[in-house]
């Protein structure tokens, strides 16, 4: 396959104005599914979280989950939306083996929430208001496992196996209006928008929001229009592509950038853009063509006759509005100033999804910089290694107990990392691990002096160099001593002793 032609990003922006539209699907973390009383749980054995409704068994009927409606209204409010006085469900009809009824219950003409706006802030400090067209409720589909052929791919598979556990999990689909004026920031806007949505749903406590599990999925629509139409609004829009299921913040940014560069190359060469869905490939960092839009997209929507319309009372809406958490942007500004983080430091923890964890750790008594260092450092590293969520590994209280030992001089940073590892591995409390692993710093100078003598014996010229003013030469001895002490020494004290010896 020929390598996709790309135009350099800066050049693409000179010729074209990028316009994006984003659809974010949020899986709600209700106990049960959207229209059935089956458990809404991740990681169960295939086809064990089902009721007759999830399988579309003959005679089964959907019933709306009250909690999912409340969550959707809260989300709509947090997105600055109007909550519809009358909202209803509709059937979207199409055949696919992961759809048990071969129609999806969704919302069409009258979504639960509409016409909102989300404020996002870029690393540069630029603030963008993303216009929200609507947020509607729907049900998720099951999962297909493709067997044979190239592993896991639909193309060339011999057969597929269907697990309907995810079928019927409540989703809210948030649809933006076209986002104009992003210019060179457009890819970052896409990622920052998804990050903000994630913060909002986490703050609301309505979704686990784990992108790698598909709790939060983004479809990115990208189109370009030639320069000179900047004030034309919606009247002049280029043909768009829709890149499906981009499942990390970094990928959202990359996929949008890629599409801008790809489309620009085609348009500049006199070609035209095909309206189609495209797939994002994490490994190659490219999108590839999927299904073209066609006649087959006649979804034959009609009002769902098995469900009654919803007319959320204004009392309920106001009750939920009053319970909304602080807006993420405001909260972010407040925390950044309270913690005295640089914008870059703060952006890193936002992108890593660790704001809530650091907040809890600070509340547990750890200094903000120390909390940031632990979560973005050792804990994130272990989480990454084990394909786990940092928050699942350790509690803020456990971190505090380790940091307490560092502050007391019992541990240095290196030893503390080992203790953190021990805590994560369930070896006991921080104090117990220090005890059982024998990790405390050796504070008696005796063994340190012995180790220094041994090291100097190996490197006799070091003292001379120090006396000549090359103080950095002490590093080699300190390194050898720390190694001999298996890290259980305070490096600063070792340095003092070496310098004393040179001076002496």
């Amino acid at each position, binding site marked *: 396959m020929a390598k996709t032609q790309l135009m350099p990003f800066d050049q693409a922006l000179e010729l074209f104005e990028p316009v994006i539209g984003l659809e974010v699907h949020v899986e709600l973390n209700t106990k049960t599914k959207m229209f059935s*009383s089956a458990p809404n749980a991740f990681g169960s054995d295939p086809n064990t979280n089902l009721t007759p409704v999830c399988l579309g068994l003959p005679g089964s009927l959907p019933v709306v989950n*009250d*909690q999912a409606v409340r969550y959707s209204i809260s989300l709509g409010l947090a997105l600055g939306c109007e909550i519809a006085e009358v909202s209803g469900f509709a059937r979207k009809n199409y055949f696919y083996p992961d759809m048990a009824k071969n129609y999806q219950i969704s919302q069409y003409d009258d979504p639960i929430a509409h016409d909102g706006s989300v404020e996002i802030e870029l690393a540069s400090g630029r603030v963008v208001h993303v216009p929200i067209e609507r947020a509607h409720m729907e049900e998720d589909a099951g999962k297909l496992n493709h067997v044979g052929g190239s592993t896991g791919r639909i193309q060339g598979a*011999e057969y597929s*196996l269907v697990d309907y556990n995810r079928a019927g999990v409540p989703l809210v689909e948030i649809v933006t209006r076209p986002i104009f004026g992003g210019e060179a920031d457009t890819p970052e806007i896409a990622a920052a928008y998804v990050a903000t949505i994630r913060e909002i749903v986490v703050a609301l406590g309505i979704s686990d929001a784990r992108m790698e599990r598909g709790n939060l999925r983004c479809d990115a629509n990208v189109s370009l229009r030639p320069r000179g139409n900047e004030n034309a609004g919606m009247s002049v829009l280029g043909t768009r592509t829709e890149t499906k299921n981009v499942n990390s913040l970094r990928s959202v940014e990359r996929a949008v950038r890629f599409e801008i560069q790809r489309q620009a190359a085609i348009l500049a060469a006199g070609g035209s853009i095909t309206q189609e869905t495209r797939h994002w490939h994490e490994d190659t960092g490219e999108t590839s063509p999927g299904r073209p839009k066609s006649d087959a*997209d006649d979804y034959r929507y009609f009002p769902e006759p098995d469900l009654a319309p919803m007319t959320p009372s204004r009392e309920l809406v106001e009750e939920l509005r009053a319970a909304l958490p602080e807006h993420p942007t405001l909260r972010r500004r407040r925390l950044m100033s309270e913690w005295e983080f640089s914008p870059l430091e703060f952006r890193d923890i936002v992108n890593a999804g660790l704001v809530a964890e650091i907040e809890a750790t600070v509340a547990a008594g750890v200094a903000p910089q120390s909390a940031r260092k632990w979560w973005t450092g050792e804990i994130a590293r272990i989480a990454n290694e084990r394909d786990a969520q940092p928050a699942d590994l350790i509690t803020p209280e456990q971190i505090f107990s380790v940091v307490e030992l560092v502050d007391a001089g019992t541990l240095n940073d290196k030893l503390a990392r080992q203790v953190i590892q021990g805590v994560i591995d369930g070896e006991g409390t921080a104090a117990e691990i220090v005890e059982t692993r024998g990790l405390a710093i050796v504070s008696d100078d005796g063994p340190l002096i012995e180790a220094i003598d041994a090291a100097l014996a190996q490197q006799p010229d070091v003292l001379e160099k120090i006396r000549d003013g090359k103080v950095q030469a002490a590093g080699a001895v300190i390194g050898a001593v720390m190694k001999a002490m298996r890290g259980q020494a305070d490096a600063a004290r070792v340095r003092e002793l070496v310098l004393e010896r040179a001076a002496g």
Partner: protein
Amino acid sequence: MSETSGANGEITAQTVEHLADLARIALTPDEITTLSRDLDSILHNIAKVSEVASDDVPATSHPIPINNVTRPDEVADVLTLEQALENAPETTDGMFRVSSILGEEQ
């Protein structure tokens, strides 16, 4: 789809083929012919609904209007794996087995 039906809403074989494709039914050529004729006759009789469906008449989709029917978020009615798979034409590893898929999910 307008190009597949005639000017007077006549149902052509092409229309029926398109509908059969949407409805996933592998109709035979004879069925397509018969259905084109039947549908044309039926539509001729039922198209008159638009005569009285003026803009000021609201649509009724539920015969007895009721609103806000929800259930509490509590687990119930869960099927065992055996019950879930009992009627399946083919299963493998606790999952429903289907032959290879041509199209992509939507």
